[in-house]
């Protein structure tokens, strides 16, 4: 691969790696956060917590 990319292969690969790591990290953080919030909401609703009804007995 580095032969095909010429003398500046390291810079090209570093740029692509940096973009992949940043975007991969961002996507992972967002999806994990959404899953955590969904679970927290489901746990509250399972306990019967609601705006008007309050907790189930």
């Amino acid at each position, binding site marked *: 691969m580095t032969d*095909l*990319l*010429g*003398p*500046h*292969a390291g*810079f*090209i690969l*570093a*740029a*692509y790696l*940096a*973009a992949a790591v*940043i*975007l991969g990290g*961002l*996507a992972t*953080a*967002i*999806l994990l*956060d*959404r899953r955590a*919030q*969904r679970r*927290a*909401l489901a746990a*509250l*609703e399972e*306990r019967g*917590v*609601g*705006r008007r009804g*309050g*907790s189930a007995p």
Partner: protein
Amino acid sequence: MASLTELANPARFMRLSNVLLPWLSGAAAVLLAVGFYLVWFVAPSDYQQGETIKIMYIHVPAAWLALMFYSMMTLSALGVLVWRHPLADVAQQAAAPIGACFALICLLTGSFWGKPMWGTYWVWDARLTSMLVLFLIYLGLIALRRAIDEPSRAGRAVAILTLVGCVNIPIIKFSVDWWSTLHQPASVLRLGGPTIHPSMLWPLVITAVGFTLLALALHCAAMQAEILRRRVRTLTIFEAERLDRLSLQAAQ
């Protein structure tokens, strides 16, 4: 305005975005796969820059998206301050980390491109410095949001700072025209049309659209997470108040 408000209803947004997200993600994946196939196996190398031109296909879309997300945040800031719409605040909050990541990608890939072509990773010229300022503004907005506990106060403070910071957007765009810079002038989004050969322009357009759809999909997912977080916060407060009332009744 009533229909606009209805459309921007959080519950309706959750329903719409649940339908939209798989399509956005799928289209982004297909376009990025096609775009990077063209970049790596079809598009020619540049006669001056050689294979380092491959960095352009992530650097340029990242720069566009960093600017686009800040522009979206500016519109959302108006929504927060003028119409006080909660979904505008959610959109603004969810956009900041995504815009910051694209600004960071733009800065890093620019450095990796600059070293072999300019002989330096960094130079304090107008385009690079104004882009760094945009990245720092994004970080400042994220920090300001976290520094204020009450969400609606935080939203208004962030909206005001966002409007102040939007003065940097035309500076970034026109810095290469207003000042003598090492960075090249615009070669795609310019009045006389693109100056890039179609064999490089099409892969760039396809990857740019792919990155845009990916960013919008991430924005939708981040907005969903934020709407859920606010719902959890509200219900937790209701629950705490109910438990307080119960303990008071038990004490009496």
